[in-house]
């Protein structure tokens, strides 16, 4: 018994070390002085001036990120879900070809995609646009969503869909009425990851926007870092606000996350 408690104590200590930077981000965001030189280990005199500045300067960027991430979730799920179902249930020699293509796609560096999209976007006028960034972010969201959804849909019994089809429903209607509702949890998992990928995107924000109009918050943070940082509390407040989706995701969906990470990485 004592031994097991000792393990818990060691586990908590490991966690404290690993999560110290996250704590420090929160602490620094509440420190009155912008300079971390005087920052203590505890925010004994917390101030929200960093947050006020963050919201004034980066509030619009947070909204932009939110819209882009939501758009990526909708578009990537709309494209990935039927495909995942097909790869899990249809019998065809193309299934293994499709899976191979998805695995290979995950090895292509984002910079390659950015290079090509920049020149194409320049021609068709999608630079500095929200739809342009949504489409680019789908490049990380779609393959991942297909893999997560497929690994779940493999366990959907074909007899359920067949039963609906005997009653006269077409393949598509059976898919919408039966497969989608049972796959709800995996859709949520895939959607949350798509949101997070898009919310965290920095590369496409950096390369596919050239002027101020559309600026996701990741780029906002980078621009804070570009100049000699004077006010760490505003930077760290922005960082905290940008970390909120990850924290919410961790609390709300922790049991799906590990499974999702494994499903997306290995299967």
């Amino acid at each position, binding site marked *: 018994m004592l031994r097991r408690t000792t393990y818990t104590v060691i586990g908590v200590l490991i966690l404290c070390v690993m999560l110290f930077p996250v704590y420090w981000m929160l602490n620094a965001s509440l420190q009155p002085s912008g300079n971390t030189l005087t920052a203590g280990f505890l925010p004994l005199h917390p101030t929200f001036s960093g947050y006020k500045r963050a919201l004034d300067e980066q509030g619009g960027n947070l909204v932009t990120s939110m819209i882009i991430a939501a758009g990526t979730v909708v578009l990537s799920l709309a494209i990935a879900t039927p*495909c995942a179902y097909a790869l899990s249930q249809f019998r065809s020699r193309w299934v293994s070809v499709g899976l191979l293509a998805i695995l290979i796609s995950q090895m292509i560096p984002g910079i390659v995609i950015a290079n090509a999209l920049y020149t194409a976007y320049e021609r068709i006028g999608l630079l500095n646009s929200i739809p342009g960034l949504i489409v680019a972010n789908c490049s990380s969201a779609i393959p991942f969503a297909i893999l997560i959804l497929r690994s779940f849909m493999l366990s959907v019994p074909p007899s359920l869909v067949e039963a609906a089809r005997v009653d006269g429903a077409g393949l598509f209607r059976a898919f919408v009425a039966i497969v989608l509702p049972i796959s709800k949890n995996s859709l949520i998992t895939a959607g949350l990851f798509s949101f997070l990928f898009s919310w965290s995107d920095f590369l496409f924000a950096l390369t596919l926007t050239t002027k101020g109009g559309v600026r996701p918050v990741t780029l906002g943070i980078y621009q804070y870092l570009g100049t000699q*940082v004077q006010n760490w509390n505003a930077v760290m407040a922005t960082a905290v606000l940008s970390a909120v989706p990850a924290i919410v995701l961790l609390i709300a969906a922790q049991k799906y996350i590990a499974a999702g990470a494994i499903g997306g*990485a290995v*299967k």
Partner: protein
Amino acid sequence: MAGRAKSRGRRHRGETLTKVLFVLPAVVAMVALFGYPVVKNLLMSLQDYGLKTFFTGVAPFVGLKNYSTVVTDKLFSDAMVNTALFTVGSIAFQFAIGLGLALFFHKKFPLSGLLRSLLLLPWLLPLIVSSATWRSILEQDSGILNRTLMGLHLINDPVPWLNSPSVALIAVIGVNIWIGIPFNVTLLYSGLAEIPDELYEAGQLDGATGWRSFWYITWPNLRAVASVLLMLGVVYTIKVLDIILGLTGGGPANATQTLATQSYEKSFVDFRFGQGAALSNILIAISFVFAIFYLRGTRRAVDE
């Protein structure tokens, strides 16, 4: 009779069409987001594709000139070495620490599951957020790391973590290790969880305990997961950009410049898209060598 056969045939055709419609959007998306960029990069790497091209629309083919230009650049060999050090250093430590923590959390104790899920947080944070946070921690004069180390009298002068060419790469690798540990723990833990307890019980009868049970039971059974994890690590780490740009911007004096950051700079800072494409194609070629190992490792998982 004939009519029914005909309608069945029509229904079958309709069915095939519906099935095609299930995958068509994804095929279009994959071609547009991966197929097109790869082909376009191959073409661009053979062209004199620069700022002028955006005005004139002309990008003359120059053969392999872009490749010879980037490879003979004196920065190239530095970037190669940095990429190798960054990748190998990150992965070795992520894996070793991740394995240690996975073994630790595999022991059953109160709160183990909760602590393990909280550990995932660094992996879920946007990379640029982690970079910003670490930059404040690593600041030379006011960062909490130097202040703590000096307070403990472990160092006498502040270490220029991100400002000294000889230290910056180590600092950047350190941050990347921190980011990668949670993912390694999660995958290795799931690998450990799949090893049947009976193996350990049988091993115990044969006297395999402690280190021996690790070498003869745990490690062999973990190898499949480990090989996938290592290859995945290479493929992801080799193209990392956010962390390096956020922490050092490739500096000081190009000490943290990698193939990925160089490719970015060529294309989007110097607007020499042809050279940027050449560098990123070299990056793809390197990942592909590892990808072959990776695919061999995952083939079994896909077949299941």
